[in-house]
């Protein structure tokens, strides 16, 4: 194959484990195209993941990779970044991994504004363990632990990250694949904590119980519930219910954590030398 993103694969691991039509494969492709467009070497990229379907990504790519404990991708990534700030650290998390089990780590990484790119694959369900509802399952949708409909409100990851102090926040969906490649590229090049949430399809665990049995039906549904941010802002309140805005929510330049740490170290050492 002359598809040039295959240079990043651990080819002996393919075909991959994800179900037919799973959005994680589409996101992996976008991510590799974005990394390729930055021109980074394989050895300077570190990819860290937690537990879940999405976290299998690190097994298929030929970067420095690490598959860590559930929800703790960001603490491990923070350690790697602090030890060697020259590395490009990317974390890949699922919706349950990021917003439920690792929710606390997520907001504190955003608060520190450490230079990590967090990619959140939001398939709205715990896919690997059999379809339990997650903090990002939309209200009213079914899950194996919510057979009469989910009564919880779902998190708005983009608003959460923006208010917690991140520098770049965007949301895309797997249907608009060129847009997510663009968002991931901007997030990778951003100095500071950057978050890209991607709404993905899960035809098996989410789709089967919600009458969206095929990958095609799921993608059509995702296409129907997502609207561009500027269109969403103009919609009347009653039409906003059940729709998810996509686009860039935040893009600011604020001081980055490892740089501030280095500055502090330099200042203290300077003071000691002068004594």
């Amino acid at each position, binding site marked *: *194959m*002359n*598809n040039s*993103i*295959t240079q990043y*694969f651990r080819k002996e691991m*393919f*075909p*991959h484990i*994800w*179900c*037919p*039509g*799973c*959005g*994680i*494969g*589409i996101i992996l*492709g*976008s991510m590799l195209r974005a990394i390729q467009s930055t021109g980074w070497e394989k050895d300077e990229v570190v990819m860290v993941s937690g537990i879940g379907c999405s976290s299998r990504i690190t097994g298929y790519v030929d970067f420095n990779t690490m598959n860590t404990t559930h929800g703790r991708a960001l603490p491990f990534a923070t350690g790697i970044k602090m030890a060697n700030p020259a590395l490009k650290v990317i974390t890949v998390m699922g919706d349950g991994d990021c917003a439920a089990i690792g929710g606390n780590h997520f907001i504190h990484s955003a608060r520190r504004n450490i230079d990590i790119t967090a990619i959140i694959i939001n398939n709205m369900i715990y896919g690997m363990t059999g379809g339990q509802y997650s903090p990002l399952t939309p209200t009213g949708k079914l899950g194996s632990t919510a057979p009469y409909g989910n009564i919880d409100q779902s998190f708005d990851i983009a608003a959460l990250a923006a208010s917690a102090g991140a520098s770049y926040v965007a949301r895309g969906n*797997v*249907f608009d*694949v*060129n847009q997510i490649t663009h968002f991931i590229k901007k997030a990778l090049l951003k100095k500071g904590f950057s978050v890209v949430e991607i709404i993905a399809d899960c*035809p098996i665990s989410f789709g089967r119980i919600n009458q969206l049995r*095929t*990958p*095609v039906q799921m*993608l059509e549904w995702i296409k129907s519930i997502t609207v561009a941010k500027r269109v969403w802002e103009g919609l009347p309140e009653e039409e906003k219910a059940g729709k998810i805005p996509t686009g860039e929510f935040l893009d600011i330049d604020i001081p980055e954590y490892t740089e501030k740490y280095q500055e502090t170290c330099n200042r203290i050492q300077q003071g000691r030398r002068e004594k």
Partner: protein
Amino acid sequence: MDKKNNLKVYQNEKTVITVNEDWCKSCGICIHFCPKKVLVSNEKGFPEAKNIDDCIHCMLCELRCPDFAINVEKKEKTVEHIVNQKGLED
């Protein structure tokens, strides 16, 4: 196992479409969302580039393929092709 065995190649003078049937899981995304309806499902459910002459190289099948199984390449134009296409022979 020789992985090259199930690589299907479809081509005409402008386009080469390859389908790696070892990696394809027959999800049908490429077939349904092709804007020119180039691809059809074969008896095993794998995509087959039946109407390859309609392909406009938008690459959406390749970009949306979750299994990295389909690949579209635009053939570099040969001089003969450009001459024929633009009617420059006269």
